[in-house]
């Protein structure tokens, strides 16, 4: 009986604050005035911002997540070669892990706003003559890159930690054997290290993709209403339009995308049982 008594509080808590709200979200989205209906979804799809929000969200995930993975693997490989000072470097590289996405957005706002540090550099280099705005709807590409860079800056650390944890348990013998047989470092990386890291990569991708689809405060801080994404539209409908039904429809969209993405990663990056 003891183990059940020990897990009961957690089960109860998650039941009340996770399972029930999950069901309620579905009910909110698919019900209008007590009856089942797709009206909320119709309102959502007809909204002016809906198309942009979906496109922006997917673009952000498609650019930020792969780059985060590549950077994190690169950084993990660098860490492997660092002898003295490794702990210090790892600490510095994981600092963004503790930084709120809102704070990260504001940090990059300090850099890319009209009178920010980026423009100061460009001005000193003679590229621009006066403070330029990069964050308006007239400069969609610049706005997108500002948001993407802030997101990459903040969230690469989490991928790095997962990859580093994976690298630590890699058996050294394979790499040594590859060296003995004359494999180049690149070949031993692509043929041995990467395949062995697959489980870590899978975990990192699932976690990061789910979180990137709901990247909220970074976007709000830098783009505001000029850069709608699905989650910020959910917030707008809930907070400003006081329409929980449409907000919940947006939530359902994010949930569906997250589940599909997770399944895709689980299938595409599965490790055959024999290799475990």
């Amino acid at each position: 009986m003891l183990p059940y008594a020990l897990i009961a509080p957690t089960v109860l808590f998650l039941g009340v604050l996770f399972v029930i709200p999950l069901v309620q979200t579905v009910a909110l989205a698919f019900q209008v005035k007590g009856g089942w209906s797709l009206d909320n979804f119709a309102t959502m799809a007809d909204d002016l911002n809906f198309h942009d929000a979906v496109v922006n969200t997917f673009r952000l995930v498609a650019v930020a997540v792969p780059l985060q993975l590549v950077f994190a693997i690169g950084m993990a490989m660098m860490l492997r070669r660092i002898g003295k000072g490794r702990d210090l470097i790892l600490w510095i590289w994981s600092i963004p892990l503790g930084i709120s996405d809102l704070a990260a957005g504001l940090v990059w706002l300090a850099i890319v706003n009209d009178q920010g540090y980026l423009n100061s550099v460009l001005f000193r280099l003679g590229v621009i003559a006066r403070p330029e705005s990069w964050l308006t709807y007239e400069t969609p590409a610049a706005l997108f890159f500002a948001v993407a860079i802030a997101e990459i800056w903040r969230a690469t650390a989490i991928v790095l930690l997962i990859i580093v944890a994976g690298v630590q348990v890699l058996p050294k013998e394979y790499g040594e054997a590859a060296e003995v047989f004359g494999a180049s470092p690149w070949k031993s990386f692509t043929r041995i290290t990467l395949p062995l890291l697959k489980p870590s990569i899978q975990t990192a991708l699932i976690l990061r993709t789910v979180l990137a689809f709901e990247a909220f405060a970074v976007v709000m801080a830098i783009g505001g209403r000029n850069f709608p994404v699905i989650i910020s539209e959910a917030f707008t409908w809930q907070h400003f339009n006081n329409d929980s039904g449409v907000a919940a429809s947006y939530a359902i969209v994010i949930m569906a995308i997250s589940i599909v993405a997770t399944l895709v990663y689980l299938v595409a990056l599965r490790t055959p049982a024999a290799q475990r």
Partner: protein
Amino acid sequence: MTLNRALFAAGVTAVCAWVLVPIWLIASSAIGGQAVISAWPKPFLPIGGSLDTLLRFLAIDGVWKSMLVSVEVAAITMVLAICLGAPAGYALARFKFRGAVPFRLLVLMTRAFPVAILALPLTVGFIRIGLYDTAFGVALVHTTLALPFAVLVSASLFQAIPHELEEAAWVFGCSRVQAFLRVVLPLGAPGIAAVAIFAFVISWNEVFAASVLSVRTRTLTAYLLAVLSESPLYVQFAGAFLLIVPSVLFIFLVRKQLFAMWGIANR
């Protein structure tokens, strides 16, 4: 070979700069004084330290209160996550029981779903039972974010403490509870502390749920988000700086356990 080494060192330095320079810039925006805020083009070395900007920020009506709310919410989250999560972790580590696998799955599932979204229906429910716009209500949602982490990490913490030590304590006449308190808990304490700190940071940093679930009792993040479009830049930068400082300190405190934790929690 030396060229290789130089390139490598340059690469490592570049990544450090990529992480640190933006933090440096927000710090010099927040503590550089009025001169930096209005300067064009911006100086890269801050002009003397000055607390003017931070003090002006803190003097704004509602800022102090929101910082206190943030601390309160994070503290409640921390206590709830540990009190609920550690026993569950102990159960997973020490017992084989029917339902252990589905339980683990339930815990993992909360992480695969975008948890921020649960805040939407909870606003309705919280208004009904009087938890809307309270620190406790926000802390409850933050606990669902921190709890899976607390359960999984404490499970592996307890697993790493040899069962024999506990059995020895039983042989010498300790009850199960005594053995836990005198043998297991002291050994697991540093790890538990790290989990607690991480739960605190998760809550301190959370924006969406905190914003949706409150109007007046706002956390610092919810406050900053609410005033985002209408406040001068110095307010935003000072706020960001105050958000970052505790997090960076906390990450420093748990740096040893940090990635052991993440490695474990994501296996």
